């Protein structure tokens, strides 16, 4: 579904993403982990069209989409969320989601129905008419997901939707992601919360200094010496054991 071939992104002298290749098949739930500054969000920005890659190819459904603008990529079926959430603050929750739905639906009435359905799925129904800016962070993260879902993506990119959540909010959003995945959605999930990722992802890619240093099942990755040295640390291994 999505194939990255030796994707590279530089900012001046800094190479934020270097020669990253990966393959996402229909129905996958791929996790991308790595320490701060590893290039995770930069990679998302390249995939979703916010940055033009300096090298390599981004192939979505057989089409090279590298450098295409974000709205085109979204219409092709690839939608992303933002780590620093970007709600339409002055609009209601349901209007936020409806703007996503309007990408596929031309009629406002149909889009509103769709938005109400998605709001329900994402557990935002009690807050449907609240202004987006009035929501606490946990619900704003959900709103990010809801809005993206309303565009009916086939591949959804979630950028740290679990960061900064309370344990109960965390459980809730993991359930939501599992539900979406069970419904047939393909996902790439960036996460800093390693424990959550271990519970969720089928496959994990570890980024470090812009390079993919390991790929495999959560268990394989957690045993990988380079990953332990670069990111997890020996304490994590002990805690898992």
């Amino acid at each position: 579904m999505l194939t990255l071939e030796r994707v590279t992104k530089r900012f001046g002298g800094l190479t934020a993403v270097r020669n990253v290749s990966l393959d996402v098949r229909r129905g996958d739930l791929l996790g991308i982990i790595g320490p701060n500054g590893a290039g995770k969000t930069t990679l998302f920005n390249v995939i979703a069209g916010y940055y033009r890659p300096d090298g390599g190819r981004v192939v979505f459904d057989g089409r090279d989409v590298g450098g295409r603008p974000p709205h085109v990529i979204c219409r092709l079926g690839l939608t992303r969320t933002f780590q620093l959430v970007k709600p339409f603050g002055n609009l209601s929750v349901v209007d936020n989601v409806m703007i996503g739905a309007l990408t596929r639906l031309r009629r406002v009435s149909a889009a509103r129905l769709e938005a109400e359905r998605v709001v329900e799925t994402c557990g935002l129904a009690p807050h449907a008419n609240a202004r987006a800016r009035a929501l606490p962070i946990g619900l704003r993260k959900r709103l990010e997901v809801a809005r993206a879902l309303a565009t009916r993506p086939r591949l959804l990119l979630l950028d740290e939707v679990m960061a900064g959540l309370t344990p109960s909010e965390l459980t809730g959003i993991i359930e939501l992601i599992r539900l979406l995945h069970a419904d047939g959605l393909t996902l790439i999930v960036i996460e800093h919360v390693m424990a959550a990722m271990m519970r969720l992802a089928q496959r994990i890619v570890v980024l470090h200094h812009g390079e993919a240093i390991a790929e495999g099942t959560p268990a394989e990755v957690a045993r990988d010496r380079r990953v332990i040295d670069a990111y997890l640390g020996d304490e994590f291994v002990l805690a898992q054991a």
Partner: protein
Amino acid sequence: MASLPPRRWAALALLGVAALLPLVVRDAFVLDSLILILMWGALSAAWNVAGGYAGQVSLGHAAFFGIGAYSAALMTARFHQSPWLGLLLGVVLSIAAGGVIGYLSNRLRGPYFALSTIAFSQVLLIVASRWRGFTAGSEGIPVPFRPGLWTLGLGHVAWVYVALVVALVYYGVQVWLETSRIGYQLAGVREDEDAAEALGIASRRLKIRAVTLSAAMTAVGGTFWAQYVGFVDPFYVFSIDLSIRFALNTIIGGMGTALGPFLGSILITSLETYLRATFSGLKTGFAGIYLVIYGTALILVVRFAPEGLTGVAGRLGAWRARADA
């Protein structure tokens, strides 16, 4: 339509009053005030399309107003054609100019965009005031009065209804922007352009379209104004004062609301005409006093009703609904 929200009823009521007023009042001063209130309201509504709904705050909309005014004035005075052709020409020219401003809105943000729009209107001012051979330069152009609808030589009562139709159409455009697919997408672009892009909205194209629509609407307003007033002075039609008037009416009334520009115009225009009439006979020391009142009104609104008059009305409505419950 029993489900019409209160603010739409308020708008219809205001337009109804405006429609009925000429039937009972024949006083030229009152009708003149009414026409100006409607015209400035409609022009502020045109500004609101870019400034309020698309979030592109322009301080150079006089450029489009002047294009419309000059197109009509030159078409009638120089080429002896109908001002309606001038209106058409003004629309075409302002769409081109609006495309330029819309392009700038994708390159420049906030204050830098606003400054570039001022520069744009100032360039047109210089062209209009220096190109003596064609525009008659800083002397301005008297618009010939030839009675009839085709020549837009109308009496006060007829002008009320022309202005009313323009106001009604512009109000309708704004309502469309609040309820249509494009309108919601534009709201997304206004709130957060990156997020809108992520949701599949071609934000740049949409902004250019909104600014262009706003420009064309402003040019149409400029044409009618020139035909009504009968004189086009470059230092007035391209002035920053005028650009600020469009913005000010809308900010005071409520940005991004359909009724706001008209409420702002009712307040500011009637205040202005009243003060002018009251103080014009006095010593020249009072000549600028309405500017002081302008400033005071703006400060009061920004301090006590930053969302404009419609915001205050909304809060009162909510408060009453709670009190009833």
